[in-house]
């Protein structure tokens, strides 16, 4: 797996340390301070920070720009890249550009469909034309070939190889469940060095999925980081359970959040328990933490999970 790209995330994983990544959502505006503010309280909390790429198909500051701002703040970014909005020409051009700016981790995902942006209070751009020239697994192969062969998708050479540490997503608990580990294998074969999973609340279900990946020796060939979204209310859990495919929230967890006197504290407690539970699973090499629009909760989460200090941030 280790190709010597040299990112902090890669080194933490290679050292066998339980890794922590955290999500940083870019603003719906162009103010770099919005990213710097998040950087100021997230510094030292994680080994690398995912910058999302117009998540839920809502226009935000680009993940390249957000990643560069983090980098300037001394935080290592994981640039997320969806195949929704760019064809293979633009994707590869942006990969070269991101590399030129010093970005070295990239997570390849298909991205939320543009219809997703029309939910809630926002209009989004449901009338947008999507691209989907390549899919997320084909994008992984593009990154692998840029790194290992120094060639573009077409086979044309780039001036020099583009060594990126390559990530992919995994939703093990969406149907067809018996295909999900096989699809994970496709991602690993296509070049995924690390995996960040869909949010885990159903630990036994997740454990069974990880076990099937382990039986296929995928956990030796890639580093799986369990995704955990900090719950903030029973309503949020209920919403995710009903509307986010692959996210199964047990009823008792929803009840627990509902009866909590202090949902904020309870959400942190639940998160810490989830981290401990997934950490105990053979084959899980870290956690990917998301506190959507509430990143200020993460320092306490990571501290209480006993995951501080992070390597290199002593």
């Amino acid at each position, binding site marked *: 797996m280790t190709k010597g790209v040299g990112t902090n995330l890669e080194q933490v994983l290679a050292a066998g340390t339980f890794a922590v990544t955290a999500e940083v959502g870019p603003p719906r505006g162009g103010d770099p301070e919005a990213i710097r503010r998040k950087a100021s309280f997230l510094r030292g909390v994680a080994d690398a920070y995912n910058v999302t790429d117009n998540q839920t198909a809502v226009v935000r500051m680009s993940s390249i720009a957000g990643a560069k701002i983090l980098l300037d703040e001394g935080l290592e970014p994981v640039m997320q890249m969806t195949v929704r909005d760019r064809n293979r020409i633009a994707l590869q051009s942006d990969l070269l550009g991101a590399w030129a700016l010093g970005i070295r981790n990239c997570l390849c995902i298909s991205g939320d469909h543009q*219809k997703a942006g029309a939910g809630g209070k926002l209009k989004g751009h449901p009338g947008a034309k999507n691209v*989907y020239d390549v899919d*997320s*697994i*084909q994008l992984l*192969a593009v990154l692998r070939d840029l790194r290992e062969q120094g060639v573009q*998708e077409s086979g044309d050479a780039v001036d020099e190889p583009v060594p990126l540490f390559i990530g992919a997503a995994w939703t093990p608990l969406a*149907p067809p469940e018996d295909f999900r580990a096989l699809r994970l294998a496709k991602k690993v*074969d296509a070049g995924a060095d690390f995996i960040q999973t869909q949010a885990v609340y159903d630990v036994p279900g997740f454990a069974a999925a990880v076990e099937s990946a382990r039986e296929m020796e995928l956990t030796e060939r890639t580093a799986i980081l369990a995704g955990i979204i900090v719950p903030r209310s029973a309503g949020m859990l209920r919403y995710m359970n009903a509307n986010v*495919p692959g996210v199964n929230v047990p009823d008792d967890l929803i009840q627990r959040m509902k009866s909590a006197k202090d949902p904020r504290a309870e959400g942190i407690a639940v998160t810490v328990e989830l981290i401990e539970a997934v950490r105990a699973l053979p084959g899980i090499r870290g956690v990917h933490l998301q506190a959507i629009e509430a990143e200020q909760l993460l320092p306490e989460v990571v501290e209480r999970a006993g995951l501080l200090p992070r390597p290199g941030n002593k």
Partner: protein
Amino acid sequence: MIVAEWKPIAELVQMLRGHKKVLLAGCATCVAECASGGEREVETLAPLLRMAMQVDGNPIQIRTKTLERQCEWEFVEELAEIVPEVDAIISIACGIGIQALAERFPDLPVYPGVNTTSLAIREEPGLWAVRCAACGDCVLGDTYGLCPIARCAKSLMNGPCGGTRSDGKCEVDEDVDCVWNLIVERARARGKMQELTEFRKAKDWSNSGHGGPKRILREELRP
């Protein structure tokens, strides 16, 4: 079949303002099958349009004619006698038929009465669903006869994204099957799920509209 859907009457009213006599032209082929542009729809739409134009304060006369196939010149020719008597044409054939009329009768405005949306099949009475995207690089042999280009919201080639709902529907539309879930079901039923683990490389889209306006030249059929 090629599927088209009526434009809103209000949009048609806006198009037709200022015209006095129009020809409403249908087509008895695909758009008749999908109940949007055949003779029955032509004869249904004509009085609706007359009424709407009347209400709008711009009364018009409407002639109607439904051709066997609006995309074939020999049938289009049947309109040659009527066209001199009208000042505009509104067609509810697919985009191909509409363009054929515009090409044959370049002196008249030709308006689309429908939006052409898809290559679809009638799944049930009153329900059509897309089957083909005319991508020019057919993969149906690898996907058990289910098209991931037309029927996956993201045209994925290597299996389902994380957005398959627990009931097997697509996260983009709760009434639409996740086609990759169906593909996996068929592969599973044939004991061939392992075949779906083969990496499908990026598609060549150049044999579709992405390669520039498509022309198909068959020398052996040329005069």
